[in-house]
């Protein structure tokens, strides 16, 4: 981490690596401070100097250097131990990505592009001359250092560039901030009716949404049926049969869960931060599909308000955009997820039962009462068969469920997937089909995220289960 002068022509990614390191370091210090560690004011500077001295090759030395420069109390060691592995992982994976970005096609070369550009990007290897102004893959290239609340104990907030725009949520009082870059979403800002310039879903998007909903509604049910090739022994059946043989279980019948269609409940966060980051037509395709094909489906829209929109989505005579308009939800005023879940519980308690899969589309940047949110999500998780969370931010390779809302929700969510475009739905469907809701599913198992397919890039549709298998190991 020396100075960047004179090296730019030789190694164009050098400044990027430096920026990445500093961003991660500042984030790490912010996390420590949030956890109550009294990091000295100049600690970050010292830590940066210390890292410059020890280098970044050896995890143990980096840890010792940071520990020496950031900590001043024995008691803070635990918080440090807890936070360090994440820091190290993020740092290394980011640096690796920067280092390898030279050789091959950019894994995120079509970041920000729409589906139509996909083939072009896949075909052409990244051009070095273009690379300079292209976004660094996987790097929070324009992320700003995390900002702490004035009292120092709030969540560290980092603006994460997503596929579409910058999102900075979870920031309760920032009315006075200037509109410096991108669009900021203020929780206390005025709501405004959105012009519904929503394109009609393409057939591809409809197909992806269909596959996702089908994957959800063909989950194994709870009832079991005798099956010679079933996965488990039918203990009751075996006991009953053993009565004929004097208590000796001669043959062990097997059983399998009967496939069962689950009910589906879709909760869509229509705050501005979500709608700007997801592909709206894919979102509407999902809503339509849930409303028309899932059994007993209910669709709800929420931001700071909460309203049911099942009828609008289900009625084929009305366009999806009209449906959103008809719901008369005012968009863009922040999200109160806890409040919405409370309303759901109060006004439509039968929409969620133990045979319902709840699909939540939200970025989890909750501005409401955290206690209310925890109440709501635990109720939802207790009551529903499964909770699938589609988070538009989770498509970013550097996503971690670190915001207050997401970290509160994470333990209660069966699967947390990215959702910015229809291909994300296809990927989620693929994982659910293969492993079921209880299995290891989620954004972290997305082969596109783990860098398995550098040529594929974002937006690769994965319709054949065959290629899905290959992508499983993360190596293609």
């Amino acid at each position, binding site marked *: 981490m020396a100075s960047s002068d004179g090296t730019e022509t030789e190694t164009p990614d050098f400044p990027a690596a430096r920026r990445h390191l500093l961003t991660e370091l500042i984030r790490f210090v912010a996390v420590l401070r949030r956890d109550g560690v*009294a990091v*000295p*004011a*100049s*600690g970050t500077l*010292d830590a940066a*100097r*210390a890292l410059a*001295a*020890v280098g970044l090759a050896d995890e*143990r*030395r980096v*840890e*010792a*250097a940071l*520990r*020496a*420069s950031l*900590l*001043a109390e*024995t008691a803070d*060691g635990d918080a440090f131990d807890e936070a360090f592995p994440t820091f190290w992982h993020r740092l290394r994976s980011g640096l690796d990505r920067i280092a390898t970005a030279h050789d091959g096609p950019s894994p995120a070369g079509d970041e920000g592009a729409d589906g139509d550009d996909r083939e072009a990007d896949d075909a052409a290897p990244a051009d070095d001359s273009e690379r300079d102004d292209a976004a660094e893959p996987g790097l929070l290239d324009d992320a700003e250092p995390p900002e702490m609340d004035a009292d120092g104990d709030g969540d560290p907030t980092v603006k994460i560039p997503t596929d579409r725009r910058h999102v900075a949520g979870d920031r309760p009082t920032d009315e006075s901030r200037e509109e410096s870059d991108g669009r900021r979403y203020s929780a206390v800002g005025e709501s405004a009716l959105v012009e519904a310039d929503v394109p009609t879903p393409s057939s591809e998007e409809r197909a992806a949404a269909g596959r996702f909903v089908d994957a959800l509604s063909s989950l194994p049910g709870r009832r079991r049926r005798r099956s010679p090739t079933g996965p488990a022994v039918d203990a009751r059946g075996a006991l009953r049969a053993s009565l004929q043989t004097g208590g000796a279980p001669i043959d062990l019948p097997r059983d399998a869960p009967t496939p069962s269609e689950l009910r589906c409940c879709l909760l869509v966060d229509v705050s501005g931060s979500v709608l700007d980051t997801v592909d709206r037509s894919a979102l509407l395709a999902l809503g339509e599909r849930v409303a028309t094909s899932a059994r007993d489906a209910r669709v709800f829209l929420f931001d700071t308000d909460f309203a049911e929109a099942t009828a609008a989505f289900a009625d084929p005579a009305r366009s999806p955009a009209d449906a959103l308009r008809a719901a008369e939800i005012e968009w863009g005023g922040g999200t109160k997820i806890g409040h919405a879940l409370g309303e759901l519980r109060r006004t439509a308690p039968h929409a969620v039962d133990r045979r319902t899969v709840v699909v939540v589309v939200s970025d989890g940047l909750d501005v409401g009462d955290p206690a209310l949110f925890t109440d709501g999500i635990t109720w939802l998780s207790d009551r529903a068969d499964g909770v699938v969370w589609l988070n538009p931010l989770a498509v970013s390779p550097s996503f971690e469920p670190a915001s207050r809302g997401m970290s509160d929700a994470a333990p209660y969510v069966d699967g947390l997937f990215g959702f910015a475009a229809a291909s994300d739905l296809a990927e989620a469907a693929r994982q659910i089909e293969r492993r079921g809701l209880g299995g290891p599913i989620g954004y972290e198992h997305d082969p596109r995220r783990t860098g398995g397919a550098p040529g594929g890039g974002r937006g690769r549709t994965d319709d054949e289960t065959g290629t899905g298998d290959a992508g499983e190991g993360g190596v293609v």
Partner: protein
Amino acid sequence: MSGELDANPFASLTEEELRERFEETDYVADDRTVTTVDLALRLGRPLLVEGPPGSGKTELGKTLAEGFDTELIRLQCYEGLTAENALYEWNYTKQLLAVQADEGTVAGGAATNGDAGAAGGRDREAGAAGAGSVFGEEYLLERPLLRALRNAEGRPPVLLIDEIDRADEEFEAFLLELLSDFQVSIPEYGTVSASTPPIVILTSNRTRGLSDALKRRCLYLHVEPPSFETEYEIVRRKVPELDAAVAAEVCSVVERLREESFLKRPGVAETLDWARAVAALRHDDADEPLAPDVIERTIGCLLKEAEDVSRVDAELLERLHDAASAAAERVE
């Protein structure tokens, strides 16, 4: 800051070199300690070492001085320690005699301080400290801190400020200027700054919290009681006369003792004391394991509180004996 870094003779010190120095001086350090000390040297920052008594904090300072073949200047802190005790004093008796014998004057006179420029980096205030003044070099009694700054050998000394938590907060505040700029101001004499900043090691037993301002200026190292393997290594090096098998038994017993909730758990220093005691008591030809009665008779080397000693009963001795017998396999 950058100017000091340039002058820092350790700027290119590698961990391997440092580890070698530790090896030479028989100081067994874990990786974290080596990295942290290396950083402190390379960045020219004071190092604040905290840990329970007897964990080798002071030894670290001594080792550095020995390893780099330089002077160890030790300042033992205590309650009531004042800047005069730590920094400098005027030799009043000599001053008084000089004035009476008319060799010096309180106001200043002809230049007798020929070696003015020799002690590097020192600024003179021409008016106050003229020749013949009794506020000159020869009337100045250097105390440890000033000595560390004025070291003219070119090789930075090791300044060990021991048990800083025992000193008053006023003294701690006084140290701040010294630690950040490596300079002090003497009103009658001028500002003394170090040409090469000394290696500063501060140790603390955590009897009270240190101020944030002090902590901010230092790198921080917390030393834990060592693991069995490390302690065995230490005993082998420091008490070479003790049989290897017995050394393992000694470490094993101490490790077991640390699990008990004593008022004062034995540190490495106590282990070494005890190892030496055991070595002294053993007959040359004997190679039987540590007997419970030997442990009981020498327990005073390990436990320094009457209540702790009284808690050592037959049952605990039996368990210690078991630990000792199990030690042999652990070293394999």
